[in-house]
């Protein structure tokens, strides 16, 4: 067995200390605020998952942000998580996730000719990331009100939730990924409800 040198012991100790420090100092210890972007990255589906056809168009007539402090999306330790400043752009990006679930969201005015697509309005009620020890939990609550020309309607709340373990990599990417995951959760249920509206 090779004798342990003072230098290698010191190096090992330094690495252990760094790891220990990092494990105890996730995103909360940083001095700057964490800024989320008005983007949406859908969850990765396993290879071979059939892609849903975006055959059905739903026109979103209004996107409303009802959060009390729309500038905030969480406080982790002593660090704030800032929501995207442009909530309209954020919600459009999120709704873009409906495409891979078989629904094409449209934000422009209804066409003057041809059958009018079902219309909807979306309200963002909650988008918040909380932390428990080294785990971040993102929660979103969306209210969808939709109606088809045939008379079918939806008025429902959709919840999405995702927890991510930060370990020492807990930067803004982990927070953004948690928030995106929560939205993806809500979109799954929303798309399932919207599909029957297309045939109504």
């Amino acid at each position, binding site marked *: 067995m090779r004798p342990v040198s003072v230098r290698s012991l010191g190096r090992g100790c330094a690495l252990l200390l760094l790891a220990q420090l990092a494990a105890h100092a996730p995103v909360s210890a940083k001095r700057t*605020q964490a800024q989320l972007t008005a983007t949406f990255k859908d969850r990765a589906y396993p290879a071979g998952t059939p892609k849903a056809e975006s055959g059905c168009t739903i026109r979103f007539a209004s996107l409303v942000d009802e959060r009390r402090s729309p500038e905030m999306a969480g406080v982790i330790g002593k660090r704030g998580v800032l929501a995207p400043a442009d909530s309209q752009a954020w919600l459009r990006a999120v709704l873009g996730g409906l495409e891979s679930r078989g629904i094409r969201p449209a934000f422009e005015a209804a066409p003057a000719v041809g059958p009018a697509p079902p219309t909807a309005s979306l309200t963002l009620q909650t988008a918040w990331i909380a932390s428990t020890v080294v785990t971040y939990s993102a929660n979103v609550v969306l209210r969808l009100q939709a109606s088809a020309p045939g008379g079918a309607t939806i008025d429902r709340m959709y919840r999405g939730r995702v927890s991510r*373990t930060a370990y020492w990599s807990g930067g803004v990417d982990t927070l953004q990924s948690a928030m995106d995951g929560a939205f993806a959760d809500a979109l799954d249920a929303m798309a399932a409800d919207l599909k029957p509206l297309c045939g109504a």
Partner: protein
Amino acid sequence: MKALLNLGLCLVLVAAPLGSAAIAAPKNVVEEPARTVAGGRAVQVLVAQAEIKSDINPSNIAVITGGGLLGGLLSAAQNASRTKKAETAIEPLRSALTGFDADALALDTTKTALAETAWMQPAATGFSKDSSLLGKSAQLDAATAAQVAFIEYSYDVSPDFSSIRVVAKVEFANKAVPAAGTAKPESRLSPKNLAYAQSATSIVTLPTPGADLDANAAMWAADGGKVARAAIAQGFAEVGKLLPRTLALTAADIKTMSAKDKKKGVAGGFAGRIQESTGAQTLLWSGAFIDVRPVS
């Protein structure tokens, strides 16, 4: 020998809990001369959450294994698993509480509590969800008063979901930056620079908690969250009663409440010296007031 000494030092450093660094304790009483502030005192109500929070009992694997990286990783994995379980269990309760306005309760509680403290008449009252260090520092910058009383409320369920807890954390911070020019503005909020820091806690328990977390979650969530709504409202109301008592405390009061003639006890999962105990209600002192009672 040198290697052994280094190994010993390394183990001590790695195993040492990093969070236990000695921190200067802030003042936990507002003495008579500090009650009135030249330039006035503003109040900022903070509720840094959008919905009721869950909580877990943190893993102690790291302690059992003597600290270090492996213990840290195992502990993180166990904490993550517990968080996921608690977040799943709390979902029906959050759905049942949709539309429940705890922010308004926080504002009302503050108004009621401060009305009973003559010297705490605020120059202005604001509300924010940003309780971060930089957020509070910015709120200090924006204040027109010389001091800001931050009253931060939080509400959550206990790890076993047997109780709902409402906590009000009070901090007085001065607008002026200490040692201006050299200190960072956020240093105004460091414990040693706070003019005052205290808290008050209300724990509202289920009258007959179930066997596990899921059973308790179902009781809180039943009937549109009727019991949970009552418990949160009751928790805020109790905190509203404790705040004026907390603000009025003197060093002598604290000495009396901490004296050995006050029996030690445990209620609602918290330990402290029993100040009042009437039937199912218990008021503990553990450096701060903790009121425990069943939902009514």
